[in-house]
Each structure stands twice: as structure tokens, then as C-alpha cells.
């Protein structure tokens, strides 16, 4: 098992390395000069040249890349052109918001998708199954921004049940320790603030989680149906086990396998979707920051975010694969 993890970690290194090259080249081929963007209307040829020299932009590309790589290896992502603060600090400030949002979306998608999929499988071809199919098709086909704006309009603007934007009511002051609203409020025992934060999370989490919800539902349904026809399920019944135990232990445990893989793959989609969702719901996270950085031509920030997201994606999938190996003994010793 340890060997397996080490092997997977080593395999991630060339991926990240390659990605850094592609990103670097890509960002530097984009039109627009960061120095000009930084100076805005104050830009003069002299000032621009000076800034370019400061940022190292006047060096040959390969030198710039080597310098960048050297920084990366020291864990240094560079500074934001706009704020002149270390990117890693800015990132850590916003990342908890994105984690809260994506985890919320994932809990919504898994927590609802698995029971729905199981229900559909148990009532296959019936009315309930049909409803679940329709809902999940809708979930897949509605774009996040349409769903997000619709939810916002109905539940925030019209019904006023839930807040429309932000992570917390601006009138509530809380102390930040980890930058996770839900954790920090709990740490301080500030329960009203916790629920306020939670109420802010609901709409964006649903908007972001709808596509994974649809996919997880479909996969769970298909997987349960598949497993139900397996010989070992008949064996389990032949042993005299209750339907509850047959379903919960012998069917579900096996049905989880493809579902777990799919959940891992959803994380990439969730990070991408977070960019849109955070923008719609004014959610202070990495996604909204990305949009801002692109508008500001803050290339180093964009580059760093993509690299970190790629790293997260790799790590999450590694964790998922380890989880998979944990459930499935057939690959545990491979």
C-alpha cells in the first residue's frame, strides 16, 4: 500500500513539471503586457521598460522559465503584480472559501445522489425511476450560471429565504483563524454566525453541485443495478441474510467502486465550476480571484492558481484511488 502511494506520488512529478512548462508558455504567449496593465493610464515607454526589467520580463523566455521553476522549487509562487503581496498568502486567504464551497457542493451531490440512485435502482422502470432520470438529465443540461441565477432570483430575491451573495452577513463580525467561516465561527462558539455562514453556502453549493449530483445519481443507479444481478448477491440471499443486509453490505459495498472513481473525477469540474459560481454569488474564493486576476492581466496569479488547482486535482484523485484500493482488495496488493 505504501509502495503504491509512493509510486503514485512520483508519477505526479513529471505531470506537474510538464504542466508548468505549458502554462508558462501559454501565459506568455497571451496578448497584453502585464507591465502596461499594471501602470494603466500612467504607462509611458520608459516606465514600462523599467517595470518590465523589475519583473524580469525583459529576459529571454527560457531564462524567465528557469527562474520561475527555481522559485517554485522553493515553494515560492512569486508576487501579485497588483497587490505586490506573495501569491501564496493571497491564495491561502481565499482558498478556504473555495474549499467550503466545493465541499458543500460535494456533500450535496453525494448525500443526495447516492440515495436517489439507490432508490431509482430499487424501483427500476417505475415512476420514481423515471422522475430521477428526468431530474438528473435536467441537472446535467442546465448550465451553472443559469441555475445559479435562477436559484438566486427565486430563493433570495423573491422568497427571501436565503441570502443572495457573500459568505457571511457583512453586519456580523467574526474573528478569522483558518479563514473557513464555518470552522472559525464554531471555534469561537458563535453559533448564530455559523448558521448565517451555512445559509450563505446553500444556494451556491446547490448550483455548483447540480452537475455532480446528476452524474453521481446516474452512476449509482447503473452500478447498483449491475451489482444486483451478480451471483454473489444471490449467494448472500441464499445465506438467509435480510434484504437490508444484502443491500447495505453486499450490493452497496460493490456498487461504491465506480461511484468513488466518478466522485474523484468530479473534483476537476467542481474547481472549474467554482469560478462561475463564486462570481455569481460574490463568493470570496479562488474562483472569483481568478476572474479578477485575468481581468487585471495578473499573469503570475493566474499561472499559480492553475498550477495549484492541477496539484489539488492530482492529490484528490490519488486520495480517491487509495480509497478505492481500500474498498477493493483486488487492487490492494497489485
Amino acid at each position, binding site marked *: 500500500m505504501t509502495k503504491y502511494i509512493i509510486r503514485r506520488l512520483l508519477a505526479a512529478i513529471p505531470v506537474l513539471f510538464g504542466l508548468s512548462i505549458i502554462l508558462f508558455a501559454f501565459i506568455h504567449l497571451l496578448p497584453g503586457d502585464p507591465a502596461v496593465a499594471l501602470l494603466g493610464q500612467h504607462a509611458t515607454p520608459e516606465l514600462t521598460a523599467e517595470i518590465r526589467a523589475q519583473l524580469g520580463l525583459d529576459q529571454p523566455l527560457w531564462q524567465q522559465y528557469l527562474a520561475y521553476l527555481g522559485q517554485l522549487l522553493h515553494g515560492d509562487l512569486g508576487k501579485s503584480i497588483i497587490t505586490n503581496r506573495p501569491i501564496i498568502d493571497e491564495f491561502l486567504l481565499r482558498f478556504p472559501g473555495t474549499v467550503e464551497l466545493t465541499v458543500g457542493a460535494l456533500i450535496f451531490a453525494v448525500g443526495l445522489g447516492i440515495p436517489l440512485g439507490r432508490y431509482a435502482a430499487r424501483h427500476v422502470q417505475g415512476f420514481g425511476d423515471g422522475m430521477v432520470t428526468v431530474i438528473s438529465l435536467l441537472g446535467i443540461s442546465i448550465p451553472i450560471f443559469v441555475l445559479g441565477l435562477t436559484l438566486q432570483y427565486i430563493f433570495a430575491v423573491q422568497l427571501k429565504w436565503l441570502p443572495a451573495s457573500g459568505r457571511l452577513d457583512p453586519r456580523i463580525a467574526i474573528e478569522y483563524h483558518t479563514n473557513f467561516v464555518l470552522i472559525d465561527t464554531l471555534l469561537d462558539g458563535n453559533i448564530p454566525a455559523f448558521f448565517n455562514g451555512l445559509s450563505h453556502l446553500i444556494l451556491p453549493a446547490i448550483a455548483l453541485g447540480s452537475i455532480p449530483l446528476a452524474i453521481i445519481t446516474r452512476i449509482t443507479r447503473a452500478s447498483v443495478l449491475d451489482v444486483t444481478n*451478480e*451471483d*454473489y448477491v*444471490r*449467494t*448472500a*440471499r*441464499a*445465506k*438467509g*441474510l*435480510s434484504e437490508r443486509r444484502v443491500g447495505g453490505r*453486499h450490493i452497496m*459495498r*460493490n456498487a461504491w467502486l465506480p461511484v468513488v472513481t466518478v466522485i474523484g473525477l468530479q473534483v476537476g469540474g467542481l474547481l472549474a465550476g467554482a469560478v462561475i459560481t463564486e462570481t455569481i454569488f460574490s463568493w470570496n474564493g479562488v474562483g472569483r480571484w481568478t476572474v479578477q486576476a485575468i481581468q487585471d492581466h495578473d499573469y503570475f496569479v493566474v499561472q499559480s492558481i492553475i498550477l495549484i488547482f492541477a496539484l489539488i486535482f492530482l492529490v484528490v484523485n490519488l486520495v480517491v484511488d487509495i480509497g478505492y484500493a481500500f*474498498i*477493493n*482488495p*483486488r487492487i490492494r496488493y497489485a
Partner: protein
Amino acid sequence: MTETTIAIEQGGGPMLGVAPPEDVLLDVRDLKTYFHVMDGTVRAVDGVSFSLKRGSSIGVVGESGSGKSVTALTMMRLLDIPPAEIVDGEIWFDGRELVAMSDEDIRHIRGKDMAMIFQEPLTALNPLFTVGDQISEQIQLHMKVKKREAWDRSIEMLKTVGIPNAETRVKQYPHEMSGGMRQRVMIAMAISCEPKLIIADEPTTALDVTIQAQIMELLKSIQQRTGASLMLITHDLGVIAEMVDDVIVMYAGQVVEQGHVDEVFLDPRAPYTEGLIRSIPSVVGRGRRLKAIRGTVPSPFNLPPACRFEPRCDYPWDLCRATEPELYQVGAPERGARCHLYGPAGRGHRSPVVGTASVEGETESTEAARPDAAQVFLKSEQALEDRRQ
């Protein structure tokens, strides 16, 4: 040929709704299991009756699709309803009737008093749990013992079925074992709660020839040691001859012949049984041509109107196309053959060559040509022996 031609009463004799005598462990009466599918209704089991005494064994033979597995699965109440429906009949097991029993009650019999071994050892075990886990799950459930005790008993069971290093094996997953080993695990599981009846549905079909004989021997020795009854489903007539006391021959969802295994094999009465036996190499013997039954099994949606075997039979006459034959008594009270030849109308039509004597090219009288018991069993013994090598 002076046997009486009284029809064996449907339901095996005793009145419906009344429990059979104490010494009868299993009494299946006029069982009908149909499948309602898109193309129509499959009468997979259509009026099957047989009974099994405590400690004895019965074989079920018949071509693919004749309803052998469905009969067993109906007894275990393991069929999905729908598409299956138990249309009629009674299953008396250990003094209780199973068809009308609640799902909850049947669960306490399944795996406890009646255990089943399936054809596919490779897929019949859950890949995600150790074999010990899967055996102890059943022991814990039925024997009401602690996990530790159940685990120890699992090891005990693995030893009983001849698995070496049981203490190590018990912690292994199915994929770490060979097919034969997994079938031993299935057997260990089946006998773990001291069942009164073991149903084995083609337990060796998926295995290597060399392993087949070992598994069969294991089953037989376990049955003799534990005193359990055995219902063995197989295509292999040689195995049946070795393993069981009585046999029922099934064709298109019905029993077409039943009786003591020696009698049925030495003196088959139903033309279908005769055909089956003529297709065994060891009975026909070297130098004689094997004769497969001509034609194919009828489609379950399009069964012949009267005798279901009529299109493939060598001795049919117009009655066979008009009226369905009953299971007529032939010889001993428990012997029966579903064929008009043994019915009241059969006398004039009785062919002089019914029996194994009608082997290709034989023209002598029935008695002279019929192989004797020793001959048949020597040869089937030989066949088993061959298979072991």
C-alpha cells in the same frame, strides 16, 4: 413387462395441504413456476412432484432449460417475483410448507436448514470480503454465536472441506483462490449451519475435469458424514449414477421419469430418458455409434400441444399429439414415466425396443441386449476415473 399402469397421483400421493410423514424431509407437490416475460409466459416448472427422505439423495437431470435450476431456486424462494410467479403447488420441507411462508420465515430456513451450492464458484463469492468473513456472516446469523466463535467455526469448516492451511486461507479474498478452492469454500459455507438439505446445482460444471471428481467425492463424503439429504442437479449422468439414490429426469419443465437411479439407468422407460442414456459413451461402449437425441429442445413459448417430447420421439402416434401423457407408474410404486406407452392406451403401441436395448444396430430381444447393472456402473466408474486423470 407386466407392470401396472396406474397413474401416479399428482402430488406424489398424499393429499394436498397435509404434511408428509416425518421421515420425508422434502415433498414437492405439483409445483408450477412461471416467468412472465415480454414475449409471453415461460412455464419453466410445470407440475413437478418428487419427494426426498431424510438422509437420502436425489439427482435431477435434463437438458439445458428443462427447469432444474428454477425448481431449486423456487424451493429456496430465491426467484425475483415478478418476473417469476409460483403459480401452484406445495413444497413441504421439514414439516413446513414453504410456498405460502412469509419472506421473513423463509430467511431462517435458507442457509440454515436448506443450503444451496451454485454452479459458478468464480462469481458466487463476494470479491470484497474475505472468505472467513463470508462464512462467519452466515454462522453468526443462524447459530447466534459471537464473531470470534463464528470465525473459529469458519476455519473448522474450511478444514472439513479439505482446504490446507485453513488458518491462512480464511483471511484470503476469493480472487486469491482457484476455482476448485472457491467451490470448496462454497461447500464449507453451505454446510456451516448443519443443513438438513444441501442443494448442489451443477457444482462442478465450471471446474477443471480433474477437480470435478474431487468436489463430487467431497460432497458425497460430507453428505454421508453429516446425514444431510442431497439434491444434486447435473447434466452428467455418470455422476448421478455414482452419487445419488433416486433420480428425476426433467424435460421442458416436467418430470418425465423418476425412480431409483439403478432402475432408471438400467431400464429407462420414457423415450426421453432412453435417448439421454444412449448418448453416454460409457453405456454405449466402444465401437458403437453414440446417438444424440435428434431435434432440439422446444421453445418455451411454443411447446408441443400434448406430449412435449413428441417431435423428437421415436415412438409417437396420434394420441401423443392429442393428449398430454401423465406420469404413469411403471414397476415399483415410486417409478414413473410420463409417456402414453405406459398409459391405458399404450399396450398396443408398446414398442419391443423400449429400453437401452434399442441401441443403434441392435435387433436381439430386449432382455439379451440390455446391459446389466455391473456393466453400466463399471463403465460409469471408468468414466469418472478417466475424468480424474
